[in-house]
């Protein structure tokens, strides 16, 4: 504070003294110093003047009739509230107990009689500096309080917005168990799960570098991409590519997101996994065999689109198998000695899992025992998903009301992808989108998606790539199948997959006719066991037993044409 500035400002000063001559002198002295003066002849008048005139500084005689200076000081201090109004006793009292009484009544200092011009000036200036300092401090404090209140309110609103975007999806499904702090959005962890249009689930868990608002802001577009794309039928790789690209664009250089994406396919008993920078994923088979699936990729938000590898690792599974996903918070749990739970702790807990215990409970229990705490920090996320029989899966298809718009009813559409695009592009979301323009089909999106994905995957894997489905039935074959798959996708020159759609209205609904033709060699559909009998356990060289059985269950009819490389499916829907 500038001293000279404080001295030059005229102040509004209240004086109270019952001695008329003393009051006259003091008033004249203060006016000489450039201040405005309110004067009172007793304590009662002083309190009234204080209420009306709101003076900056008060000078009180200690002994006055009709309320003395001490009582006046008490009332004035009470009226001033949080405002600091210096009260200075002007007195010829000299007994220590009298002076102490003045201070106890709220007095801030003394001026002794007889008056001394220099002392009065110096005291007034000193107390004015204190007053201004106090004012500045309480203004700062009020500002800080207000800012803090605003910030909390904004976070509250942000939280509501975030919860709407980053909802928990289908995390409440019977086959999922998870622990995520309710405050996790501001801690940097995210956990999402979405049902897929054709059944099955997509699960994503992520761990942002950093905490608080920046991490939450980064999580928003991830949530939107994840839920938006998952419901439209995009697969895990598509969504990972999108998320990575978004994060590269929006995050500062020192921020990224470690993440795990899991496609859970109950129909085909298969898990597809991508781990970028999170701790090992653990697969615990119903037979109690255990496998760690380590991170094979850099976190999201680092590599440019052409360097980013979104290829997922396929894992064969059976009902009862369980997959454990976790963020770094699990490894970083510390005990009282400051030791970390670490990978060792996780491995030890999982190895101690027995057939009648759930690995989720075992791991949570081990963490609680290790840390000695019943509550965890905010940045600990643990999720366990169990493979179940498809029939035991609750239908997760969304209720979609019939649109008031009629939409297209009579239409035809051909769509063909060829050459390298076969290995680079997933056409299913686009094809589903076209079909979903028909309001009657929109309610059947799950079934339509299942039909399209079975047709497409069969055409690609068995038709174009000529991968025998029976490989998938042994662990070695399964691995060989997927390594051959990515190998052969590089050699698709001259190949194509062509979809041909036709939709027509029928008396009480509509009919979708889909023809899927590929450039492969076809197969001997006349002697395919599933087409000959109802024995689903058998599998043929071209169509996996389950896939074909699924088609037969959903479709009105399935017919193979040509050399077996052209499939025609009729799908009827009713109002």
């Amino acid at each position, binding site marked *: 504070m500038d001293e000279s500035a404080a001295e030059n400002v005229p102040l509004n000063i209240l004086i109270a003294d019952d*001695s*008329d*001559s003393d009051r006259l*002198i003091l008033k*004249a002295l203060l006016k*000489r110093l450039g201040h405005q003066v309110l004067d009172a002849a007793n304590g009662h008048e002083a309190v009234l003047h204080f209420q009306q005139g709101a003076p900056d500084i008060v000078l009180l005689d200690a*002994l006055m009739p009709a309320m003395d200076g001490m009582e006046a000081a008490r009332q004035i201090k009470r009226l001033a509230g949080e405002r600091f109004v210096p009260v200075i006793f002007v007195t*010829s009292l000299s007994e220590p107990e009298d002076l102490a009484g003045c201070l106890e009544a709220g007095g801030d200092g003394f001026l002794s*009689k007889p*008056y001394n011009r220099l002392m009065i000036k110096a005291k007034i200036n000193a107390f004015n500096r204190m007053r201004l300092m106090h004012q500045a401090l309480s203004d700062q404090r009020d500002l800080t309080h207000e800012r803090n209140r605003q910030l909390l309110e904004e976070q509250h609103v942000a939280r509501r917005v975030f919860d709407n975007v980053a909802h928990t999806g289908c995390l409440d499904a019977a086959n999922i168990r998870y622990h995520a702090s309710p405050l996790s959005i501001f801690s940097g962890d995210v956990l999402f799960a979405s049902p897929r249009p054709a059944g099955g689930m997509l699960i994503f868990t992520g761990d942002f570098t950093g905490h608080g608002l920046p991490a939450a802001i980064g999580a928003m577009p991830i949530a939107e991409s994840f839920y938006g794309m998952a419901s439209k039928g995009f697969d895990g790789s598509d969504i990972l590519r999108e998320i990575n690209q978004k994060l590269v664009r929006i995050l500062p250089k020192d921020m990224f997101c470690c993440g795990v994406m899991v496609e859970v396919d109950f129909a085909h008993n298969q898990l597809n996994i991508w781990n970028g920078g999170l701790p090992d994923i653990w697969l615990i088979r119903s037979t109690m065999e255990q496998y760690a699936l380590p991170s094979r990729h850099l976190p999201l938000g680092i590599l440019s689109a052409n360097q980013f590898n979104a290829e997922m690792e396929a894992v064969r599974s059976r009902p009862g198998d369980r997959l454990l996903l976790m963020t770094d918070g699990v490894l970083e749990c510390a005990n009282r000695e400051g030791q970390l739970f670490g990978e060792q702790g996780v491995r030890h807990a999982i190895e101690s899992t027995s057939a009648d215990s759930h690995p989720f409970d075992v791991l949570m229990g081990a963490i609680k025992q290790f840390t000695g705490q019943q509550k965890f920090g905010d940045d600990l996320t643990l999720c366990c998903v169990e493979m179940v029989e498809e029939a035991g899966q609750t239908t997760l298809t969304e209720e979609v009301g019939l649109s008031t718009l009629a939409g297209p009813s009579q239409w035809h559409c051909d769509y063909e992808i060829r050459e390298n695009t076969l290995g680079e592009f997933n056409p299913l979301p686009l094809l589903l989108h076209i079909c979903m323009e028909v309001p009657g089909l929109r309610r059947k999106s799950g079934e339509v998606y299942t039909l399209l994905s079975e047709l497409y995957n069969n055409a690609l894997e068995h038709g174009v790539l000529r991968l025998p489905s029976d490989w998938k039935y042994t662990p070695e074959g399964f691995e060989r199948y997927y390594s051959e798959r990515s190998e052969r996708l590089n050699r698709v020159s001259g190949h194509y997959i062509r979809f041909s759609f036709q939709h027509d209205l029928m008396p009480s609904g509509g009919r979708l006719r889909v023809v899927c033709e590929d450039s492969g060699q076809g197969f001997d559909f006349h002697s395919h066991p599933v087409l000959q009998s109802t024995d689903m356990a058998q599998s043929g060289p071209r169509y996996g037993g389950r896939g074909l059985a699924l088609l037969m269950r959903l479709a009105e009819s399935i017919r193979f044409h040509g050399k077996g490389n052209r499939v025609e499916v009729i799908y009827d829907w009713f109002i």
Partner: protein
Amino acid sequence: MADLPHLDEEALAELQDVMEDEFATLIRTYLNDSKERITSLKSAMKHRDADAFAKTAHSFKGSSINIGAPHLGELCRQIEKVGLEERLSDAPPLLSAIDAEFQQVTAALETLMAGSAE
């Protein structure tokens, strides 16, 4: 104590400077107040009201010192002490002294004002 002057010339000069046109008003106010105080002191003594006696003496002391009448101020301090110690029987001689000193101060101040009014 007896050495203290009736008027503190230096203090009065400063007061004159500070009060400017109001100096005469100040002196009149002081003289009127003081007369009232002497009456109050006598009345309090008559009614054996030591507390009122001490308080009046205290105010009288303060204003006398402020106005530049140190000897009168000192006499006031003594009777304030008498009041505080509830020895009102010791008051009469001091009150007489105050009466006498006040006459002196009044005369001196009248002279001063007559001089400054020229």
